[in-house]
C-alpha cells in the first residue's frame, strides 16, 4: 500500500475513533445524567397518597361524617357499542372450547351491569347509547361494586376514583355537621357547620409515592422506590347524643309541619358542663346533598337566627330583681289588666283579667307583663342591662359553628321610655335559641353560666385525644337566688301556671313559656325553655317554633319540650321521682297534639 494512502487511512481511523470516544464520553458524562433521568421518569409511576379527611363523630363515637373512596362509572358510548359478549362452552368429552356470542352492544352491557348497580337495565341502557366519549352512568359506587363491574371486561366502561365524604346518619344534625365541596385538585373543603369551622384540622396532609415498573407493570426490584405516607386529618368528636338528636329532630319537624310554622329548633344542653346534647333544626339538610334543601335549611338556625325571647326574658328580669332589687317570691303586687308606668307608658297583659293581688312568684307563673314591669322597675336600667349581658345576650357563646349571632341589645342609655320596660318582658332584645337555653342553664347550674360547646374532643390520626379545655364558668347570680328562681320556675309548670303542659310524670320541670309577636312580619315566636329534674338538673332545653298557627308557647312548644325531655331522662338513665305527677294540662295538651 502506498504510504501516503496508509497515512490518510490511519488519520481517518484515528479521527473516527476520537469521534466515537468523544461522543461516548459526551453521552456518558454530559448528557448521561439527563438521559438517565428521562428514562427513569418514563418507567416511573407516581401516585398521590390522598390524606383521608378526619371523621366527625357523635358523643357515642358513632360516625356522623367520614371519608372513603368511591367510584363514578363513566361510559364511552362509541366503544361500548362494539362490545360482544361471548360465553365459553367446553365439550365435556373432547375438552374443546367453543365460544358463543350471546349479546352485543350497549343493550348487553347494560343488562350485565344493571344488576350490579341495582338499577333498571333499560334505563341504564338508554344512557349508554349514543356517540359521546364520556357519560357518567353511576355515581358514588362502592369499590367492591366497581370491581365487579370491571371484572365483566366490557370495553368503554371507565372508572373515576374519588375520595368522597359520607354522612351515614343522613339528615341527622345536618346543619351542625355542614357539608363539603371539591376545591382545586378535588380537595374537599368544608362549606358549612363543623366541616367549615374545623376544616383546617379535618384536612390532612397529602403524601406521594413513586416506583419504577417494567413493561408488564411489575416493580423493578433494583429500581428507585419512594413513598411519603399521607397524614390523615384529625377527627372531631361532638357532644351530640345521636339518639336524642333523632327524637328532637322528629319532634321539631312534626310540630313545624302540624303548625304550618316557618321553622323550629330545639337545643338541649348540660347545664354543668355546657355540653350541647342536641342542636336540632327543622327540615335539616342532608349534608350529602345540600342543594336539595333551601338555603335557610342549610344553616344552623339554633345559633344564627335571632328572635325576641319574649316571656323567657322575664326570667332574667326576675333573676335581677331577686338578686339586686330586694324582691322576694312572696312580695305582693297589685296587678290590674292595664298599668301606666311613671313615665306615662301604658302596658297590658295578654289576657283580660280583674285587678289581682299576686305574689312575685305568681306573677312569673302567670307570666303577667304588668306584674313583671312593676318588679323590673325596682332595678335601674344599667343594672338590668348588665344582667341581660351577663346571662349571655349581646355576646357570642363561642360555640364552634359558623355565623353565630350575638343577638341584639342596644345600650341602656339609648333605651327609650317604652324599651326600658319592654326589655323586662323580653322585647327590644333579641338572641338565638342557644342563648335562650343558656339563660335557663345558668339558673339550673346554681347561677353559674358555662359557655355551650358542641365539640367534646379532637382525635389525632394516631388515636391521641385532646379534650375540649374546660371553660371556667361565670357566676351571674348567687346560688340562693338561683334556688329561689328555680322554685318559682317550678311553679310555672304546676297547676295554674302558663306551662302546665310542660310537666312530666316523674320529673319536676322548671321552665318558662314565651310568646312574642314578630316585629318585621305577622305571626309569633312560640317558645319553651326549661330544665329538668328541676332540683338536680341534668338538662336545659329550649324549643323555638317560628310563626306557628297556634299562638302560644305553652301549647306549641311545651309538648315538644316534654317529648325531648322525657327521652333525655330515659337515655341519661335518670330515675323518676314518684312524688311528681304531671298536671292535668299535660294530658290535655297530649290529646290536643294528637288531634292536631
Amino acid at each position, binding site marked *: 500500500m502506498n504510504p501516503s494512502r496508509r497515512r490518510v487511512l490511519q488519520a481517518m481511523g484515528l479521527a473516527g475513533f476520537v469521534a466515537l470516544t468523544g461522543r461516548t464520553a459526551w453521552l456518558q458524562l454530559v448528557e448521561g445524567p439527563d438521559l438517565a433521568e428521562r428514562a427513569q421518569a418514563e418507567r416511573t409511576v407516581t401516585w398521590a397518597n390522598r390524606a383521608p379527611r378526619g371523621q366527625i363523630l357523635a358523643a357515642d363515637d358513632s360516625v356522623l361524617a367520614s371519608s372513603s373512596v368511591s367510584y363514578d362509572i363513566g361510559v364511552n358510548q362509541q366503544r361500548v357499542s362494539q362490545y360482544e359478549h361471548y360465553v365459553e362452552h367446553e365439550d365435556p368429552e373432547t375438552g374443546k372450547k367453543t365460544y358463543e356470542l350471546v349479546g352485543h352492544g350497549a343493550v348487553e352491557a347494560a343488562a350485565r351491569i344493571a344488576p350490579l348497580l341495582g338499577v333498571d337495565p333499560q334505563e341504564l341502557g338508554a344512557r349508554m347509547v349514543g356517540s359521546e366519549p364520556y357519560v357518567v352512568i353511576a355515581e358514588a359506587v*362502592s*369499590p*367492591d361494586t366497581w370491581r365487579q363491574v370491571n371484572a365483566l371486561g366490557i370495553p368503554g366502561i371507565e372508572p373515576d376514583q374519588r375520595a368522597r365524604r359520607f354522612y*351515614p*346518619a*343522613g339528615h341527622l344534625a345536618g346543619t351542625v355537621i355542614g357539608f363539603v365541596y371539591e376545591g382545586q385538585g378535588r380537595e374537599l373543603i368544608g362549606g358549612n357547620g363543623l366541616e367549615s369551622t374545623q376544616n383546617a384540622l379535618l384536612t390532612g396532609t397529602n403524601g406521594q409515592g413513586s416506583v419504577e415498573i417494567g413493561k408488564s407493570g411489575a416493580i423493578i*426490584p433494583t429500581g428507585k422506590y419512594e413513598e411519603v405516607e399521607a397524614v390523615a386529618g384529625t377527627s372531631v368528636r361532638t357532644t351530640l347524643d345521636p339518639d336524642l338528636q333523632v*327524637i328532637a329532630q322528629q319532634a321539631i319537624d312534626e310540630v313545624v309541619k302540624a303548625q304550618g310554622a316557618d321553622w323550629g329548633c330545639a337545643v338541649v344542653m348540660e347545664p354543668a358542663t355546657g355540653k350541647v346534647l342536641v342542636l336540632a333544626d327543622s327540615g335539616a339538610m342532608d349534608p350529602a346533598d345540600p342543594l336539595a334543601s333551601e338555603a335557610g335549611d342549610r344553616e344552623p338556625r339554633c345559633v344564627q337566627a335571632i328572635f325576641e325571647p319574649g316571656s323567657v326574658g322575664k326570667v332574667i328580669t326576675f333573676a335581677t330583681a331577686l338578686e339586686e332589687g330586694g324582691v322576694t317570691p312572696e312580695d305582693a303586687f297589685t296587678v290590674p289588666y292595664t298599668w301606666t308606668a311613671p313615665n306615662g307608658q301604658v302596658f297590658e297583659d295578654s289576657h283580660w283579667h280583674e285587678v289581682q293581688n299576686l305574689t312575685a312568684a305568681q306573677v312569673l307563673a302567670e307570666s303577667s307583663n304588668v306584674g313583671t314591669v312593676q318588679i323590673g322597675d325596682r332595678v335601674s336600667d344599667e343594672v338590668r342591662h348588665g344582667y341581660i349581658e351577663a346571662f349571655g345576650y349581646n355576646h357570642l357563646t363561642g360555640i364552634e359553628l359558623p355565623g353565630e349571632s350575638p343577638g341584639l341589645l342596644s345600650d341602656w342609655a339609648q333605651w327609650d321610655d317604652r324599651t326600658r320596660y319592654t326589655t323586662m318582658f323580653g322585647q327590644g332584645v333579641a338572641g338565638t335559641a342557644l342563648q335562650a337555653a343558656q339563660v335557663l342553664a345558668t339558673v339550673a347550674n346554681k347561677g353559674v353560666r358555662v359557655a355551650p360547646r358542641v365539640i367534646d374532643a379532637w382525635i389525632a390520626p394516631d388515636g391521641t385525644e385532646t379534650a375540649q379545655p374546660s371553660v371556667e364558668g361565670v357566676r351571674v347570680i348567687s346560688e340562693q337566688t338561683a334556688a329561689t328562681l328555680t322554685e318559682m320556675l317550678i311553679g310555672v309548670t304546676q297547676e295554674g301556671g302558663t306551662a302546665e303542659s310542660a310537666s312530666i310524670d*316523674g320529673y319536676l320541670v322548671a321552665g318558662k313559656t314565651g310568646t312574642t309577636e314578630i316585629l318585621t312580619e305577622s305571626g309569633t315566636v312560640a317558645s319553651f325553655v326549661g330544665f329538668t329534674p328541676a332540683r338536680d338538673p341534668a338538662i336545659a332545653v329550649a324549643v323555638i317554633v317560628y310563626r306557628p298557627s297556634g299562638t302560644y308557647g305553652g301549647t306549641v312548644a311545651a309538648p315538644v319540650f316534654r317529648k325531648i325531655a*322525657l327521652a333525655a331522662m330515659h337515655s341519661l338513665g335518670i330515675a323518676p321521682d314518684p312524688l311528681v305527677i304531671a298536671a292535668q294540662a299535660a294530658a290535655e295538651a297530649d290529646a290536643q297534639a294528637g288531634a292536631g
Partner: protein
Amino acid sequence: MSAAHAYATETAGYADTRTERAPRPTLYVVRGIAPARASLPFLLVVVLILLGALASSMILNATMADTAFRMHEAQIRLNILNDHIDTVRSQVQDVSAADSLAQRATALGMVPAGAPGVVDLTTGTVSGGTAATQG
C-alpha cells in the same frame, strides 16, 4: 549475568598472572531451573469465579424478579381487600347510624317509652304515667 561474566574474565586474568598454580576449575553461573507452573488450575479458578458470579447474579435477579412479581400480586390482593374493607365499613356506618336504628326499631314495632306512672299499693291504683304509644 554481566557481573558473572566480568568475574569470569577477571578470574581468567588472574589465572594468567599465576600460571604456575594449578588451574582452578572454571565456575559457571548456572541458571536455576524454575519449576514450570501449570496454568490450567488458575484458569479454572478464574472461570469458576466468573461463572459463579454470573450464576449468583442470575439467581439473585431471578429471585428479586420473583419477589417483585409476588409483591405485585400481593399489592393487587391488598387493594382488593382494602376496597372490601372500605365498602363493608361504609355499610356498617350506614346501618349503625342513629336514624337507621330508629327506623329499624320502628319497623320492628318498637315505640318510645312513655312517662313513668306510680302504682299505689294501698289502693291498687296507678296515678300518672302514659302508655308507650305508636308515634
